[in-house]
């Protein structure tokens, strides 16, 4: 349609019934929009340029001077800080010692970092999950399709993309995706489940699974992903996981704060079913992160999940 341009030609085509009226209107609105935008753009450019030469120079120079002085002061400060890598630095005090010496015994986790963030300092980690949740809600608020956020050109493009994906437009991608995706998911699940035994945990594993979902959606189109992952599932799954997180950590904070006994067994350190709440929490965090990452991705691309 694009190669034989010209308004009249299109018009005749439309009369002959070769194209729909929608696309003509679309094309026209697109042009109008661009013209308007271009005009504004040029006007703004002109004004901005004029501003730039007078004000911006001085501002930039002041900023650079301030920043250089600032870096100098910070470097001076850092030169007085303890030397990196010495075992007798102030950071290596009784706090880290207990995390290391008693960590396995008190949390049941072999990976001491996991034990620390999900047991000793779990409140931070709860806040962190809430930050992720906040971010995905904000992205949904901004990019979800609605009255204020609809663009016919973009819709058209999305439709084209989807058509290409449904036809055999990206064979290589599909082939590679079919090979790689199972391994990505397996690796992600492995990282999550072994969060208390080896490096990794809910966040990294969840990000890996999220990336796998993104790849699936890129290769097979969003319609296919929607068969098992819609906005409703997203909402329910992430809310459930966050609530489980909220309640289980709430339970352990409550018992801890009131000096009650924690009845959750620790298990034998080193086993996969051990370390008390850390394993379920890791799974919850993993699911939240995977949902969030995929959610953000699909809001970015399609404006919906």
């Amino acid at each position: 349609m694009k190669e034989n341009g010209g308004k009249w030609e299109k018009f005749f085509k439309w009369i002959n019934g070769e194209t729909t009226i929608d696309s003509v209107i679309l094309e026209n609105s697109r042009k109008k929009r661009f013209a308007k935008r271009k005009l504004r753009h040029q006007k703004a450019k002109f004004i901005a340029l004029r501003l730039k030469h007078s004000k911006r120079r001085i501002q930039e120079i002041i900023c650079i001077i301030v920043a250089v002085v600032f870096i100098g002061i910070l470097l001076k400060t850092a030169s007085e800080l303890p030397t990196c890598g010495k075992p007798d630095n102030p950071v290596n005090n009784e706090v880290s010692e207990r995390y290391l010496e008693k960590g396995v015994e008190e949390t049941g986790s072999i990976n001491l970092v996991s034990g620390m963030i999900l047991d000793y300092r779990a409140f931070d980690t709860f806040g962190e999950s809430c930050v992720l949740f906040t971010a995905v809600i904000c992205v949904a608020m901004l990019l979800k399709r609605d009255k204020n956020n609809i663009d016919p050109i973009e819709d058209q493009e999305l439709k084209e993309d989807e058509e290409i994906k449904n036809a055999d437009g990206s064979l290589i991608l599909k082939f590679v995706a079919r090979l790689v995706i199972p391994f990505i998911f397996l690796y992600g699940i492995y990282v999550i489940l072994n969060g208390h035994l080896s490096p990794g945990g809910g966040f990294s594993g969840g990000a890996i699974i999220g990336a796998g979902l993104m790849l699936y959606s890129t290769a097979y189109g969003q319609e296919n992903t929607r068969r098992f992952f819609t906005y409703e599932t997203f909402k329910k799954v992430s809310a459930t996981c966050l609530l489980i997180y909220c309640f289980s950590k709430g339970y352990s904070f409550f018992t801890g704060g009131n000096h009650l006994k924690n009845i959750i067994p620790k298990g034998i350190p080193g086993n996969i079913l051990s370390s008390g709440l850390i394993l379920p929490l890791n799974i919850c965090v993993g699911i939240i992160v995977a949902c969030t990452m995929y959610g953000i991705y699909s809001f970015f691309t399609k404006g919906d999940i």
Partner: protein
Amino acid sequence: MILDYVLLIFLILCAIGTTITKNLLDAVIIFMAYSSVMAVIWALLQSPDLAITEAAVGAGVTGILFFITLKKIHSVKGTRD
């Protein structure tokens, strides 16, 4: 020891590179390289947890999000096909 310096200097060069490139795509790619090198440095500093997370989140997901944003921007501009 020398590896440390090389990696650090590479990091600083990458950071300056993102500032001075005119092309946004270049800037994003340089930033992804920066994140990957950062992951390597953290692995050298004996923090494998961080290295995995940074490689997956910092270089992977953040990079993808930047790319999609760039794509959206160009598609609106009309330079897509």
